[in-house]
């Protein structure tokens, strides 16, 4: 038993962090704010080249054959860097949708609720080659060109363009209920990893500001009221990270626990951590935190985008409750 990151996992995280810093620096991402620009093909190709989409695909199928734990480490870095685009859906679609693993086809995903009354929005629809529709009965693929949708004027996250979908075609069935369950489980864990990345990034941002911003003649980070906000941010991020990593390892090593319960709990805590930390990060920045200029809001809004895709918090809590 060694629940620390292995050397390989650390190297993977560092490599991904370097890639993100080089290809997706925040000022470059922000230059595209609100322009509804499509995904940068070179950036997507670089993610594909690094194995983001093919990471867990068996080597025999052209993938890297790495475990879910490695994917969790990678997705945490993508979250931390606010890398835009449906990288998670494209990763999950590797082996299901041709071209997803190689990054040739950008795959998005949308969950169809049984009730079907809630408005449906899909991110980056204009850049998608394939849309995967997930429901209780399985997975279907839909040609994005056949989706009746309208681009949203002002998406909550300025780095995640959205389309409002009026009608979702039935599409072609590519997987059954077990595939859908596995998709949901893995998206809770790896979506959780993206959210942990956001939660951790806001700790760094808030702490850096608390060290530098002075009031009453000293850094605001020397005041306990601010210190405790920051400490609680770290606790949320670390607890959620442990949950996400444990869930990932439980998928890889089924004997160590209940993967479905671990995944639901991890998604629940990661979403909460990212949203609560996003808010706290704005709060630590004071008035500046409410300005467009300071990026704190970007993490909070992305947290909302990602947590919506994991499932309702109440539903996740009920999954844990029934399997406890």
């Amino acid at each position, binding site marked *: *038993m060694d*629940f620390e990151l292995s050397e390989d996992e650390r190297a993977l995280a560092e490599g991904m962090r370097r890639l993100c810093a080089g290809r997706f620096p925040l000022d470059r991402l922000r230059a595209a704010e609100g322009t509804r620009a499509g995904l940068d093909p070179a950036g997507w190709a670089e993610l594909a080249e690094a194995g983001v989409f093919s990471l867990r695909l068996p080597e025999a199928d052209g993938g890297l054959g790495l475990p879910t734990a490695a994917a969790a480490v990678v997705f945490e870095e993508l979250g931390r860097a606010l890398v835009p685009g449906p990288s998670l859906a494209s990763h999950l679609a590797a082996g299901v949708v041709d071209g997803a693993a190689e990054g040739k086809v950008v795959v998005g995903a949308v969950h169809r609720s049984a009730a079907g009354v809630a408005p449906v929005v899909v991110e980056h629809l204009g850049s998608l080659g394939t849309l995967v529709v997930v429901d209780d009965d399985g997975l279907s693929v839909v040609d994005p060109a056949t989706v009746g949708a309208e681009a949203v004027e002002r998406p909550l996250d300025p780095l995640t363009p959205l389309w409002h979908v009026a009608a979702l075609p039935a599409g072609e069935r590519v997987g059954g209920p077990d595939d859908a369950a596995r998709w949901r489980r893995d998206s809770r864990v790896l979506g959780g990893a993206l959210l942990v990345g956001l939660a951790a990034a806001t*700790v760094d941002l808030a702490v850096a500001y608390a*060290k530098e911003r002075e009031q009453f003649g000293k850094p605001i980070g020397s005041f306990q009221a601010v210190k405790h906000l920051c400490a609680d941010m770290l606790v949320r991020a670390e607890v959620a990270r442990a*949950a996400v990593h444990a869930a990932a390892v439980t998928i890889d090593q089924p004997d160590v626990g209940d993967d479905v319960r671990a995944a639901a709990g991890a998604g629940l805590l990661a979403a909460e951590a990212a949203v609560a930390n996003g808010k706290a990060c704005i709060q630590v920045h004071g008035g500046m935190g409410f300005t467009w200029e300071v990026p704190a809001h970007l993490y909070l809004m992305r947290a909302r985008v990602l947590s919506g895709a994991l499932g309702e918090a109440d539903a996740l809590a009920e999954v844990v409750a029934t399997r*406890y």
Partner: protein
Amino acid sequence: MDLRYSESEEAFRAGLRSWLADVLPTLPPKPSHLDWPGRRAYDTAWQRMLFDAGYAGIDWPVEGGGRGASPVEQLIYLEELERAHAPYVGVNFVGLLHAGPTVIVEGTPEQRARFLPPILRGDEVWCQGFSEPGAGSDLASLRTRAVRDGDEYVVTGQKIWTSHAEVADFCELLVRTGPEDSRHRGITWLILPMDRPGIDFRPLRTIAGSTEFGELFLDGVRVPVANRVGDENDGWRVTMTTLSFERGTAFVGEVLQSMELLRGLRALARRTGGWADAQVRRRTGHLGAELDALWALARRNVSQAARTGVPGIGGSVYKLALSELRQRIAELGMDLAGAAGLVWDELPGTDGRGPLGNAEIVSTWVHSFSRTIAAGTSQIQRNIIAERILGLPKG
């Protein structure tokens, strides 16, 4: 990241599990929490059984007389004891988790030979004399004075929150040997024999109505200089050794015990019909997810200790999160208990509800308030996290 145990770790677990299955049914009933001499006899008898079976001082190094188990084996040990409902460390807590480890690291060979074996065998019990009425979270402001007189220190002052003092043989005592304002530079760590003249103990009544701790009054108590651990005025550093042990594996059993408590609450809700309430299920699920996460974090901290040899600062994160979570679990229990939660003693008609009658729910809830205070308040833990992990400036 790997959560599987090795063959030798599994063998250790199997051996411990079978030993526990053999000996636990032979234990006498546990004395009341008001009968401290009875509790001492019970807890030390259990310690002796552990010693005879080779499980005493599982986390102590071999040269200290312990088993020298790896951090992972220590985790397995705590896990198996918790799952088997073995007795808690009880009155042996200070000796095994504070004083012993400190003497191992900082004591002289003579001190190690004299004090360590009786702790391991359950022959001698220790208490802690750190906090004072004026020195709680600000421990370095302590004022209990020790004045050197030949080969003895003469100690005068007052300590508080001293648990099990009436049944203790020794006290790990922090005293002021430097000037009044010397703070952490003028503190010395002494071993106080509790049979010395000039010691008076007055129990304090807790909000649970119990008397598990109290005040220790010291009036000209003579302590041999040979009982000093570490150098004069170096006691703060010696103390930090102790506290880092406390934040290592000390709370590992508690997360498992809390999981069982939550499962008990779920069973209770199912019996009473509360489970039909979506709010109850969601609260249970949320608390369960948090407990799973903290169990993961515990294993992460242990893995860190296994790699570096030292319990990491991550213990503060774990301790803070667990003690706050424990209060919310206890709160759910009180909400489920309804009117039965207004009564300390088990009500008739709740029999057969196993461990989760109203008495346990009430006791768990009331005791949960001590979790965010003892061993460093949640506020102090947040300061530690902010200053030592995040590097924020001291106020």
